């Protein structure tokens, strides 16, 4: 890859609603430009995380350089920055967009514009990107490209005249997309001789190279051997390597110039030294101002994460730090629980984000976790006028000190085939939702808008919605604001002892049902023990539900046959091992799984 003049560089990303074919289009572009030979391709190259491929979603943004020889005979350098599609990862999208001049907007030819399509378009417009609409999946029988084109023109106001009609899966129309990128995405601007300003839009940890920054050079040039400075921290490092990412890995070059997208390695040991959103400059010839960073995002959902085996606390801490390196939206602070010991209160952008982080901790770091029920951030107004933000039910002040409480509400959008409108309305009603609007879109689909309390959304809303609509409904939400609400703290008592890790904050009207349902689930999750265990749900001192785990009646091996005691010894070892996964709550042994069972839907 030779150095290419700035005017032949195109930095772009692909934005789409989840499942509209973004990753498949990325694959085709890589294939067409010859970066990946066909035989090397597994599906969805950019989704290299095991989790991403399994779930068919993109979590992290990635940058890949593709050399491209256009039909006019000119060589271009195309930098594709892949972005996540889900609402929880808006922050990541916004980071990726700051590194681009253009965005390909992929819209499904049968599904049309979805909530997330719009959200991403607005983000792209905020960053002054040139938006190139592309209609995908035109080979499907249900494709209605003309309807979708009109929708794009009407709802977004983009010109769809001559926009590529493609099938990324079948490889139709990919050349048109490449042509559009070359013709319509503006080349980057910036002066290679100006003081260096490189925006960090992502970071990774490499065992050999140390912490690595993914950067977009806005101004100046950076070369191996340069002394660089992180403008936020002021820390300085010597550049050991610069280059571009290819699907095959690092591709070192001598320099990166204004307009380039690539990486900088500088033997940075401490991952905290690289802050996504920070600007890298040259220590000898520094820029006077950092680039505008990203506005920090506030977590919306919190939960406690504890190691199933207490001795893994340090490993969990290390893993969370590693994940935060390239996921600045992950927040965590140490906390302790009487039942669970030492762990972390972790904040997430949404439920999917929470699930993804939990799964990554378990898979990539091989940790066994205990997770507490997710909570939103409540505002507690005390009688003395103080206002507290509470993300852990345990920290709720005594009832007498509380004047009133507020809970976050979201603007929720559900799009579904019209057949399920009744079911969806029932569900939103059950979840304390307020109906706002209903629109028929096309092809028998309906868009519903509701105001919903976030704490209902994070419980089991999504799973229930999917099951009641046979998976057809899609769901999106954004934070709307705080609303005064009649909330109570629901505690669970095991053998009359309160278990802090099981407390939740719920609306008063829902407390009875939730209390009963949690008690039932705990009854199934807690094994019978030597004595009878009452399980009670309580609000303040008042018991609202009770279940009982009956005393163990039989736990004995009938026979030690012919003097063979190995079987009995093995059983004993297994029981001793099982005890390690138990948490002691007063006199009751509670398996780690029981804390999770509480989160499961009915």
């Amino acid at each position, binding site marked *: 890859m030779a150095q290419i003049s700035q005017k032949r560089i195109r930095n772009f990303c692909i934005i789409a609603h989840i499942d509209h074919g973004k990753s498949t289009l990325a694959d085709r572009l890589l294939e067409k430009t010859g970066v990946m030979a066909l035989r090397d391709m597994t599906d969805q190259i950019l989704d290299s995380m095991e989790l991403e491929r399994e779930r068919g979603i993109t979590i992290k943004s990635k940058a890949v350089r593709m050399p491209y020889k256009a039909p006019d005979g000119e060589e271009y350098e195309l930098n594709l920055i892949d972005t996540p599609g889900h609402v929880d990862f808006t922050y990541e999208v916004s980071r990726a967009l700051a590194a681009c001049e253009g965005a390909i907007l992929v819209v499904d030819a049968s599904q049309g514009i979805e909530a997330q399509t719009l959200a991403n378009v607005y983000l792209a417009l905020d960053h002054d990107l040139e938006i190139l609409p592309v209609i995908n999946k035109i080979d499907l029988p249900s494709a209605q490209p003309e309807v979708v084109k009109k929708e794009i023109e009407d709802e977004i106001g983009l010109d769809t005249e001559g926009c590529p009609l493609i099938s990324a899966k079948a490889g139709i129309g990919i050349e048109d997309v490449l042509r559009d990128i070359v013709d319509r995405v503006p080349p980057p601007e910036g002066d290679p001789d100006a003081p260096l300003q490189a925006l960090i839009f992502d970071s990774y940890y490499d065992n050999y190279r140390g912490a690595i920054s993914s950067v977009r050079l806005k101004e100046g040039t950076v070369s191996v051997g340069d002394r660089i400075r992180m403008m936020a921290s002021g820390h300085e490092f010597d550049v050991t390597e610069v280059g571009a990412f290819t699907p095959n890995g690092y591709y070192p070059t001598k320099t990166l110039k204004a307009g380039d997208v690539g990486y900088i390695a500088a033997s940075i040991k401490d991952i905290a030294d690289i802050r996504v959103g920070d600007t890298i400059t040259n220590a000898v010839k520094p820029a006077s101002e950092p680039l505008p960073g990203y506005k920090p995002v506030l977590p919306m959902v919190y939960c406690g994460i504890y190691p199933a085996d207490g001795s893994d606390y340090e490993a969990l801490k290390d893993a969370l730090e590693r994940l935060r390196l390239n996921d600045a939206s992950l927040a965590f602070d140490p906390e302790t629980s009487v039942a669970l010991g030492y762990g972390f209160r972790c904040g997430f952008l949404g439920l999917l984000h929470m699930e993804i982080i939990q799964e990554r901790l378990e898979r990539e770091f091989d940790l066994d976790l205990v997770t507490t029920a997710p909570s939103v951030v409540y505002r507690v107004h005390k009688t003395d006028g103080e206002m507290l933000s509470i993300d852990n039910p345990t920290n709720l002040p005594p009832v007498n000190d509380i004047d009133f409480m507020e809970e976050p509400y979201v603007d929720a959008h559900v799009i579904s085939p019209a057949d399920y409108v009744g079911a969806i309305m029932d569900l939103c009603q059950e979840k304390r939702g307020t109906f706002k609007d209903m629109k028929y879109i096309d092809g028998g689909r309906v868009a519903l808008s509701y105001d919903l309390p976030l704490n209902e959304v994070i419980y089991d809303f999504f799973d229930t919605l999917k099951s009641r609509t046979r998976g057809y409904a899609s769901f999106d939400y954004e934070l709307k604001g705080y609303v005064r609400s009649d909330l109570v703290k629901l505690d669970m008592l095991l053998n009359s002892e309160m278990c802090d890790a099981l407390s939740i904050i719920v609306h008063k009207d829902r407390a009875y049902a939730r209390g009963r349902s949690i008690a039932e689930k705990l009854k199934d999750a807690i094994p019978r*023990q*030597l*004595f009878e265990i009452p399980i009670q749900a309580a609000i303040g001192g008042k018991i609202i539900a009770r279940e009982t785990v009956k005393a*163990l*009646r*039989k*736990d*004995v*091996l*009938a*026979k*030690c*046959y*012919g*003097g*063979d*005691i*190995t079987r*009995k*010894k093995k*059983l*004993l070892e297994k*029981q*001793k091992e099982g*005890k390690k996964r138990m948490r002691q709550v007063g006199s009751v042994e509670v398996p780690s799984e029981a804390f999770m069972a509480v989160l499961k839907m009915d």
Partner: protein
Amino acid sequence: MKASIYVHVPFCASKCAYCDFESYAGKLAYADEYIARVLDEAKRAKTEYGAFGVPSVFIGGGTPSLLSKEQIGRILGGLSDLFAFDKEIEITMEANPGTVDGEKLSYIRKAGVNRISFGAQAAQDVILSSLERIHKWVDVEEAVSKAQDAGIDNINVDLMYALPGQTMDDFVSSVQKALDLNIRHLSMYSLILEEGTKLFERAERGEVTIPGDDESVSMQERAIEEIEKRCMKRYEISNYAYPGYECRHNIVYWTRKNYLGLGSGAHSLMNEARFFNPCFSSYMNGEGFGEREMISEYERMEETIMLETRMTRGLDMEAFSKAFGNERAQRVLKEADEFIKAGFAEKNGSFLSFTREGMNVQNALIVKLLEKL
């Protein structure tokens, strides 16, 4: 030195539905060769341990009673030539009702067998056939009476409970009918579904339902009432006997005395080393004999607690303190105080024993004890 001897006979007429023991149908033709191997093994043991004294012999299986009377005689003759049988030796043979007749019983009585354990399992033929046993209840009655006629009065009957399709009445009636046979010893085992057995697969497929733990315990409790009416006493979790007829061989296992296991799959504990033999085909080829595992002090303590608390006599705390230290003994007793308060245990002199309630949850109790050690 002394050591009891267990001889494993892995031959069966057919495999029962619940059985995962070392046993094979259709291999009886190898019996002569197999017995020769067993006696070779005994000779090797003599070379290693000398001609030790033998308080008890147990010929188990499989179905030892499938062997011919001469074959059984050859085993016992061979062993008594090699080792010093105690004068009051207990020699037990397991038998399947329907595989013995008067002649065989008289012969083996003369060869030294003075205790027979019949695998009766249940008094209902429909249950027996669902377990794929080869006998009917009438065979049990006949076999017991023939054994008594042959002069063997120390007779045990094995029964099973928590069987598929078995009602409380079925089991109580099995116990009553067994006790009516004027036997000296009764063993009652609750069914354990073992992976790989036919019954396990049937249960997995939902073709049979097995009574749950609560039902199983109730069955046992009712049976104990019947047994106690006849003045028979429980002396171990699954074993009941008239005074003086407790199985001495089994007590050797539970008190961790020496025992030498001969034959395929047999387990031994000799001078604090545990080892076991390979399964049939390797055994016949003379391969795969296990390494001796020396038992650490801690394991010995675990085993002591685990085995002695199986007996109604209980854990001998004086001996425990001598063997494993007073500090550990105190910790056991401290935890046991909780058990005693909860009605799971009792203290009789130096012995800590589990009550009927305690025995039902023996595993949970010993895990709690071991946590403190």
